[in-house]
């Protein structure tokens, strides 16, 4: 009897932990799969592994305050620690292989509330569900025979995921540029802004650049060498800050809140809620963004996740990636302080 009670308790706990569910999609399995795309990048983020930190401010113009009670949407200026990256599992990947570029921000209000957001420069996401993202990641597994992913696996993935065709077409046809500065970064996932009356507004947002794109044929990028994005960013910031408008798009009835593979039509109302001013860049190894997890569900009161299933999965998987890399600091050593250096 006693043995039965204790065993039942232990079994229920093990079941909840997923020990009897080899097919359950756990953060561990997701992050393991991300690390199999060619050398687990110890000490680094398991995805968007190659990036650079920036600091700046978000200058809210107050226009967002009628949509949300988030403190950083009230007119004012709020500090930002952010990061630009390419979507890769390899911190040494050549920049020209990064089809997707990303911007992450952490905006802090005076009362300590935070708004973290990770945005990509594609207008839609490649998949709609965590399961599909897992399968896509598996399709990028390195084939030990060739040292490369098996092209048949990706073909098969695309054939069985018609919702990914819109992204695949963007990836094939979108122009390439030489800079992080000229890209529009989209939240992709939907969120709910809550106004002072408690009314919810379904939205997505984007960081819209203020400099024109410098479009080049992809073949020319290779000539720029493996690292052109970070030097370009530093060069531009040496001339002065870079600005993006934070533009909130309001959904119309019927716009999907739970399918990031479908961009909303362009004619939806847009509200420019302020300007992100990027002032300084710093290499990630010693930079201020290194030890932040840009979990998109870290939100102030007044902004809530939608029912987009990717959001919870991103939160859970980013936490797993963060837990691993903070335990691997020795594999990604900081630059030792120079003796007698002015730091």
């Amino acid at each position: 009897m006693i043995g039965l009670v204790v065993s039942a308790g232990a079994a229920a706990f093990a079941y909840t932990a997923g020990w009897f569910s080899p097919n359950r999609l756990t953060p561990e399995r997701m992050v393991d799969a991300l690390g199999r795309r060619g050398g687990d990048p110890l000490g680094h983020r398991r995805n968007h592994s190659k990036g650079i930190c920036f600091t700046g401010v978000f200058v809210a113009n107050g226009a967002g305050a009628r949509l949300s009670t988030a403190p950083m949407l009230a007119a004012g200026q709020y500090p930002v620690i952010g990061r630009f990256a390419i979507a890769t599992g390899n911190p040494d990947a050549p920049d020209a292989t990064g089809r997707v570029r990303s911007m992450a921000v952490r905006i802090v209000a005076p009362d300590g509330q935070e708004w973290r957001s990770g945005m990509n420069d594609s207008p839609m996401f490649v998949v709609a569900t965590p399961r599909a993202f897992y399968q896509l990641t598996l399709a990028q597994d390195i084939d030990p025979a060739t040292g490369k992913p098996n092209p048949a696996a990706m073909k098969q993935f695309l054939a069985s995921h018609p919702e990914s065709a819109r992204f695949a077409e963007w990836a094939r046809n979108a122009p390439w540029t030489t800079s992080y500065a000229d890209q529009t970064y989209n939240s992709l996932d939907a969120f709910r802004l809550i106004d002072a009356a408690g009314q919810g507004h379904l939205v997505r947002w984007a960081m819209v650049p203020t400099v024109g794109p410098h479009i080049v044929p992809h073949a020319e990028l290779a000539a720029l060498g493996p690292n052109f994005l970070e030097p370009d960013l530093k060069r531009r910031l040496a001339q002065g800050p870079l600005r993006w408008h934070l533009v909130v798009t309001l959904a119309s009835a019927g716009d999907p809140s739970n399918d990031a593979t479908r961009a909303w039509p362009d004619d939806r109302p847009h509200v420019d809620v302020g300007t992100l001013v990027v002032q300084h860049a710093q290499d990630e190894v010693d930079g201020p963004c290194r030890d932040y997890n840009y979990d998109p569900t870290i939100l102030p009161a007044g902004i809530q996740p939608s029912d987009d299933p990717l959001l919870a999965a991103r939160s859970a998987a980013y936490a797993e990636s963060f837990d691993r890399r903070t335990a691997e600091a020795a594999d990604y050593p900081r630059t030792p302080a120079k003796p007698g250096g002015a730091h």
Partner: protein
Amino acid sequence: MDTGEHFSPLQRGLHWLMAAMVVAMLFIGIGMVSTLHPRFLTLIAIHKPLGIAILVLAVLRLVVRLRRGAPPLPADLPWWMAFGARASHVLLYTLLIVMPLLGWSMLSAGGYPIVLYGPIHLPQIMPHDDTLHAILRSAHTWLAWLLFATILLHVAAALFHALIRRDGVFQSMASWRS
């Protein structure tokens, strides 16, 4: 057999309330770290304020225990069982206070805001540091396993008193009588 010595009603109330909270907390914790499902967000939103509530109640309970004491164990209890009873209770009180503090510390060291509800959040109690985060994060997991194992042992011992020894120890906490 009920020898008549009981924990006070306040102690019994705290015990059973916290029993439900702590068991829920352990299952929420192990469940949330092993899923990518949207319920992850709900679970983690409960986990943090529930942990802080347990911390507050555990401190209150420790104060009550130190002031009010506990009914004596039966005189005929073998010495090693009496020792086990004392040691496991010290461990339980310690873990009930340490686990929430570890969670709070680990989030602080990870640079996370510690959100309880809406705009209500707690201050950071540790410096933002990756190595510190890693240590605290893994301690939070290992001590959760230890807490769960200790609770199973506690339940087994309680049932042993109730069903086999029938010595009133179980009734001292389980009785409804005031």
